[in-house]
């Protein structure tokens, strides 16, 4: 789960990480009130989980409560896209923070490096910009250390980062102090990433996390009581939300061939095969392992509710999943839904013959059987009115 800045900062504060004083507001009145209680200059920041909000007008300085209210009204309700200009997420909240005198901006991140099975910590003397850009233009400003998960972070790691990145002398002490706190937060929050950009040097040699991008590991939800609360404010598109509630792994895409499969790898492969056959997938939908009739029926419901879908491809290779139950789910869905697009079904593996026979015995005008994965993809693309 990608946390909003204010959520991430709220968690970091529990680990004694210095962050600016601030309040969350979801109306311009609340924002003005927040600015009033904070006093002085404030920054009003869009709370959206996409990068590059600054360039899109999502961060505004305000020197009075009135200005803060105005800034909030410009930001709230605005749609933000990701750095490639894709997607779109409407801003529902702003974070109003006391503005301070920033002397230097750094970058800091903790993440899990799969290749070496260790944590990696990154510190850069240049912050406030994308770390990839710094890596290109000034690689010497970036220091990296690997931290063995069995040993944890030791003081020398922090020193190697600070001296390695060439952090200014007056910021050394503060940075050496903040790094182990961030590491502890990273580990104890079950984060897959803690990124502070920028980490800033302020007056009195204070080093403060001015922004925070924290990603939590959903698998660890069971051992953190705060997960549910954080999750509650995250909104996902309606169709994805319904799918998730039903236990389906669903992602909306831009095409017109609806895809249902079991197992992420097989579904990705099915997407590739549909593309190769000249089609465009309307979605990614993985029913997971051991799906029963009800889940399959739900999956078909989710897919066929999308008006962009012109044909559906069901590609199941039974393992734990039993093809007879898959067939039962399809028959059920066809009975209770008004299905107007062709549904190409390919079944193999556990109880495949039985499943195929069940479908053959329950003919439906929209139901099309296919013998192979490639054949099924071809047929689904053809029936969508496209194809090579």
């Amino acid at each position, binding site marked *: 789960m990608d946390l909003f800045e204010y959520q991430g900062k709220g968690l970091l504060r529990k680990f004694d990480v210095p962050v600016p004083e601030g309040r969350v507001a979801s109306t311009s009145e609340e924002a003005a009130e927040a600015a009033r209680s904070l006093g002085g200059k404030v920054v009003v920041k869009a709370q959206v989980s996409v990068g590059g909000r600054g360039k899109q007008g999502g961060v505004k300085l305000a020197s009075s409560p009135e200005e803060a209210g105005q800034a909030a009204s410009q930001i709230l309700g605005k749609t933000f896209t*990701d750095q490639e200009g*894709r997607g779109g997420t409407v801003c529902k909240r702003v974070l109003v923070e006391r503005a301070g005198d920033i002397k230097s901006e750094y970058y800091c991140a903790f993440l*899990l490096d*799969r*290749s070496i*099975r*260790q*944590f990696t910590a990154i510190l850069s003397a240049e912050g406030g910009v994308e770390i*990839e850009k710094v890596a290109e233009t000034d690689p010497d400003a970036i220091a990296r250390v690997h931290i*063995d*998960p*069995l040993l944890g972070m030791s003081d020398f790691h922090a020193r190697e980062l600070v001296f390695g990145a060439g952090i200014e002398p007056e910021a050394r002490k503060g940075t050496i102090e903040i790094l182990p706190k961030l590491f502890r937060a990273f*580990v104890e929050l*079950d984060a*897959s990433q803690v990124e502070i950009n920028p980490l800033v040097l302020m007056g009195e040699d204070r080093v403060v996390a001015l922004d925070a991008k924290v990603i939590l*590991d959903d*698998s*660890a939800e*069971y*051992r953190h009581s705060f997960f549910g609360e954080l999750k509650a404010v995250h909104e996902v598109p309606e169709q994805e939300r319904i799918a998730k509630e039903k236990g389906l*792994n669903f*992602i909306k*895409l831009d095409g017109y061939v609806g895809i249902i*499969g*079991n*197992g*992420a*790898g*097989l*579904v*990705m*492969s099915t*997407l*590739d*095969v549909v*593309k*190769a056959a000249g089609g465009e*997938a309307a979605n*990614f939908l*993985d029913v997971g*392992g051991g799906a029963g009739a009800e889940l399959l029926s739900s999956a078909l419901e989710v897919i066929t509710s999308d008006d962009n879908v012109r044909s559906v491809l069901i590609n199941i*290779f*039974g*393992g*734990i*999943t039993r093809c007879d139950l898959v067939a039962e789910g399809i028959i059920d869905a066809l009975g209770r839904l008004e299905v107007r697009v062709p549904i190409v079904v390919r079944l*193999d*593996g*556990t109880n495949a013959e039985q499943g195929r026979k069940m479908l053959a015995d329950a003919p439906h005008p929209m139901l099309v059987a296919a013998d*192979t*994965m*490639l054949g099924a993809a071809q047929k689904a693309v053809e029936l969508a009115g496209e194809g090579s």
Partner: protein
Amino acid sequence: MAILIDDETRLVVQGLTGREGSFHGLRNRAYGTNLVAGVTPGKGGTDVEGVPIFDTVEQAVREAGANASMVFVPARFAADAILESYDARIAVIVAITEGIPAMDMARVVPYVRSHNGDAALIGPNCPGLISPGKANVGIIPGEICEPGPVGIVSRSGTLTYQIVHELTQLGIGQSTCVGIGGDPIPGSDFIDVLGRFEKDPETEVVVLVGEIGGDAEERAALFIQDHMSKPVVAYIAGLTAPPGKRMGHAGAIISGSKGTGQAKVAAFEAVGVKVGRNPTEVGALVKDLRGA
């Protein structure tokens, strides 16, 4: 021969008294796997369809001679279960459980790997492995496999079945099919399994099934170049996946400039590994190699 599991395998299932554990454990036994024990704390002394249950893996090793374990306990207990098997000197630990927090595996995997070169952890979040005709540990359907000369190593489950199916359809059997799982930190990666296939006299060709995300495939390509004499055919799922979209597995995320399907295909082709464009073509490429 085969790799990791075979006729000598004596399996203990951690969580054999659970619904999933008993279903798959007994299914593995029905396939011919020598299932010697189950472990459920507090249920020692009972049995599941004749398979004795012990309180600890250590007892299962000592009293039933278990040398391989399958972990089928819920995610929150799985890291501990893996460590228990490791501590009891189980040689092959197969963790099927999905949803184990990455922080747990970040400690468990390096620990298991660094302390005892002999123990192999497969998974977690994997379908297990099968040496057709010898032993099946996990959830791969045995019916679709045939004994033969092709080793398979894969990050995904059902996609592996698809590829096994393609091979079996062509009359080409498998030495061992290993699902290493889709977690960020798998207990064994492509390289570990490729190294075993290279040494296995029964394996003549290896099929590697990868996915977008991470750099495990790129590292495997380098390993193949330096250490493999046997031909390898690769397949990468997700070539057309839009960047940044999560595709089910944690492993299937495009991260930065690396990890794209195209980069992986290029890495394999650069070291002379043929890459099939779809599962069917993978079968055809293997057939060509066998024919040559």
